[in-house]
């Protein structure tokens, strides 16, 4: 995998992870253009994009778009499942995860991602193992999150709602 981006329906970046060395300028350019391209696509369209020389796999969960760029020989479908497993992990960790959880606790989202994907490769696909590792590290910290938020769309649960 070359990079993963999470952004909202309004095009706000929520998380970015780059597995290939790129300059800040390039990163910004790619992000801007890719967000535009993905947001312009209609819901029933294919989840895969051939975008510049990259292959992009994206999926929308409630108000958030998850978007991965992969190499040409990589398997698109399994990348979709990587996205899905990541959402499942977030969901399990935060308990019915919503966009607000990710906004306010983005560093946690990064920790989970790092435990799941290492250097762009799926490292541990077992939900149990990933969360065990995260929680062990968390144990040293005080209770980790505020009470569940129940407001409007930012807090739309990513998993329970059917991915759009």
């Amino acid at each position: 995998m070359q990079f993963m981006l999470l952004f909202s329906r309004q095009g706000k970046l929520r998380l970015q992870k780059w597995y290939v060395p790129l300059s800040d300028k390039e990163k910004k350019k790619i992000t801007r253009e890719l967000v535009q391209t993905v947001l312009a696509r209609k819901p029933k369209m294919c989840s895969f994009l051939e975008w510049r020389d990259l292959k992009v796999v994206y999926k929308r969960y409630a108000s958030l778009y998850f978007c991965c760029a992969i190499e040409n020989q990589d398997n698109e479908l399994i990348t979709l499942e990587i996205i899905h497993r990541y959402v499942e992990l977030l969901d399990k960790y935060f308990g019915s995860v919503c966009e607000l959880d990710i906004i306010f606790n983005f560093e946690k989202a990064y920790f989970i991602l790092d435990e799941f994907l290492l250097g762009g490769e799926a490292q541990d696909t077992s939900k149990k193992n990933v969360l065990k590792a995260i929680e062990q590290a968390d144990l040293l910290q005080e209770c980790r999150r505020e009470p569940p938020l129940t407001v409007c769309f930012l807090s739309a649960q990513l998993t329970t709602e059917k991915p759009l």
Partner: protein
Amino acid sequence: MSDVVEKTLSALPSLLSLDSQAGAGKLSPSSKLGNLIKGITELTSKHEEEKLIKKELESIKEQVASPNTTMRQMKEIMVRAIYCEMLGYQASFSYIHAIKLAQQGSVLEKRVGYLAVSLFLNETDEFLLLLVNTVLKDLQSTNLIEVCMALTVVSQMFPKDMIPAILPVVEEKLTHPKEIIRRKAVLALYKFYLIAPNQVQHIHSKFRKALCDKDPGVMTASLHIYLQLIKENPESYKDLTGSMVTILRQVVGGKLPLDFNYHSVPAPWLQIQLLRILAYLGKEDQGTSEMMYDVLEESLRRAEMNHNITYAILFECVKTIYTVHPKSQLLEKAAECIGNFVLSPKINLKYLGLKALTYVVQQDANLALPHQMTIIECLDHSDVIIKRETLELLFRITNAQNVTVIVEKMLEFLRLTCDDYSTIDLVGKVAELTMNSVFSLGGDVMQPDIPNNFLRLLAEGVDNVEDRQLRLFAVDSYVSLLQGVTAKLPQRFLQVISWVLGEYSYLREEESDPGSVMRLLARLLDQRHTSTETRSWVLGAMTKLCSSPVSVALARDVCERYLSSLYSGSLNTVLRQKAQELMILSQDTKLRARVLPAEGRLESLEVDSSLSFLDGYVSEALAAGAAPYKSPHQRQEDLVQEKALSLEPYGLSLPVSLSSCSITDRLTDRRSPTLLSMSSGLSGNSTELSHQEGSTTLKLEGVKRVWGKDGYLAQQQSAGETPTPLVELPNPLLSPQSPPSQTQKPSSGLEPDQEKRQLASSLFVGLGSHNSVCLVRLPSTVWLFIKHCQSANQSHVFKALFKRFYINSCQSISCISGSPLKEVKGHSVSVCLHTVVMKRASVQVELAGLLSYQRPLGQPQAAQFSLSLSLKHFLRPLTVSTGDYGKMWLSFSHDLKQNLRLVTTEHQEPLTATLDALKGKLHLHVVDIIGSEGIVACRLLQGPGQGQPCLLHCRVNADSLAVWLRSPVPELPDSLLYHCQKALTET
């Protein structure tokens, strides 16, 4: 900002109050980060956001610099800095503090420090050097979490030159008692291998140890390295094939702990990784490939659940099957799998199906044929991505016959697309196709639009780097073409070449001597086969090129020869003019610069079609007594009147029409007087004339135009006639007992789809055949239709051949029994009918044959056709009583058991519903249903007589259907089971 966000914002205060009760010290909306986020979402303009972030960054800067800031506070500050960076604002002053935090913080603070480092920095950043010691220390820590963090950061980024410093410690971790550490260490080494392969060469033996690790997670991680190693050098790792196959077999067989399951599929990531490795190992190696056939087949068979993850595995499996040394059985199954993808209503699967097809048609273009109609539909798909993939597929199956249509489709797409990247990519392909096939194969007969479109494409683009590259690419490839033998290149292609070289040679001028292109063009002029029209293009190109002294000299040389008395006698006026122009322009650089400005190439010219600039000249001429201008039509009339030659009285005889011709000066050059009356009717130029000639001329009204300018007008005609022969068929073929399948009634589906079918046939010509209804375009533009029909007791194949062609003989290579059953001759079609049987039970058979046919007075010709038929075409219900069933059951020796999926519907019992589905799809006979058990019987047409039976015993077992098949034929249960599985998954 949208309403929704505003709503959220208005809700935020309540969140904050909620949170203030929940305790301090954590990251929550009440924290500084929370306030920052809240502040930003409240803003309405980008400008305000910039101001706020600037302020925030100022305050962060101040805090990090303060000696009083604790590590704990630093952690919180760092999170805010990450947030600002994510919004696109640089916080580079904080990078050094991120490293400090990773160095000095407690475990939790360290974690944020490492995160910030991995988000802020690049592999190439010099700051990273400062991190080496920290990493080294953490790697040696006794705290597992610290070791994990260090391994995580080195697998993401580490300065290449510093790898040796930590390599021994990371290596040591390969034997760590904790699997999570071993796994991360393996991935770190994988990363090192990617950035500096030489550094890790000495530890290859340790990779093998990791591959054999008792923890499947560590083993999986080691496969990343092996995939890379094997990809680079498959020969050295052939000995691993056995192990990989064993691992895959165990995974597929569900031998891994349940933790590795993903949506009840065992370790899909691992499976895909292994399949990819096997593909590299088995590529072009029969021996190695043979070792993996079984496990590949098993993977295909096991992946039966309807879930994305199984499709992911199937897709990879198909790719592997087509990469390794081919095995026909597997290829068949894989092809079918691709078919399911292509036909899937799910758009993602359709895309992958097209992609897989694109991959496999490179080996066998005929694989695309069963999906012609789907491909045509995809060409018009609303999703550009699907369209593009379809074009990619078409690009791969381009041949001399369909290239024109495909290039047209591509150009059509280009006109709609606005994405630069895909434009460039596609233009390249169009250029390649045009250059390589269209022009060199069919250049002279091709419609002039295509070269025109192509040239416009080259010229139109904005003058950016990509366009330049494309043009340069065209120039270079044409130059190299001209350096070769040009005698065989079509004239139109040479014209395109001349234009392109004239316009864009300047792009390569720096790197080669300016005269080289000029010399090539001059050589072209000297060759005898170059036509006059082409010569004038060449001269035009030379005019544009003579900018340097060398070219001027060359040009002068050419002109002199051309204008010398030796040539001028025979020289065409256009050529002479061009040569004159070249002569003058090559001598007068100033004039040349005015006429052909180098900068103006891309500007569009304004043409004054009214020629108003000539007004002055005209009025002068008129004043001097010149006759006013008359249109050609007027002139003609005048001429006729002047010479007092009326058409009326002479119109009936040929000599008069000859004389009228000489007056009109239009038809004289080529046509002989006797041909005139006929050609006038066709050319349409002088219809009046032919009308006046009345009864002596051929009556052409109401006569179908069979021959057009481009030859026999077969396309519209044959497509228009397709329904006729099918309707005329003797009825017993379409027995009412067998439910009419889609293929049996193409006539009904044809009408609305006719256009698409036409497109299909022109896109797929030259590729062989089509499934079920097969359209073969014979070389002399006749269509051969081959169609498969079913009746109660037999399967037939009939071939229909249109119009004035007789079938001499028709041999079929496989599975046709006996001689043609009958030959039906209609007025427009000859049909011959064959009975087909399945000699050996198998999932699918290919029916191939050779047809020889003849025009009334022509030479006999032959064409190959093929048709693929599945087992279900040969299955018929077997009506037996329960008693007979029991007797038969005991006497059959070949059996097979398997669990199948149950079909559930609202109104029916699952068992009945499942059996009904099987009955409907496979023509099975349901003998009896007792409680949770059902018995089913069918027979296979396998030669003369009733055929061979196969019995199925089905029992509902929890939520699956346990099926037990028995038959006297060894292969039948297996193939039938396959179709049952397929039928049920499709339901």
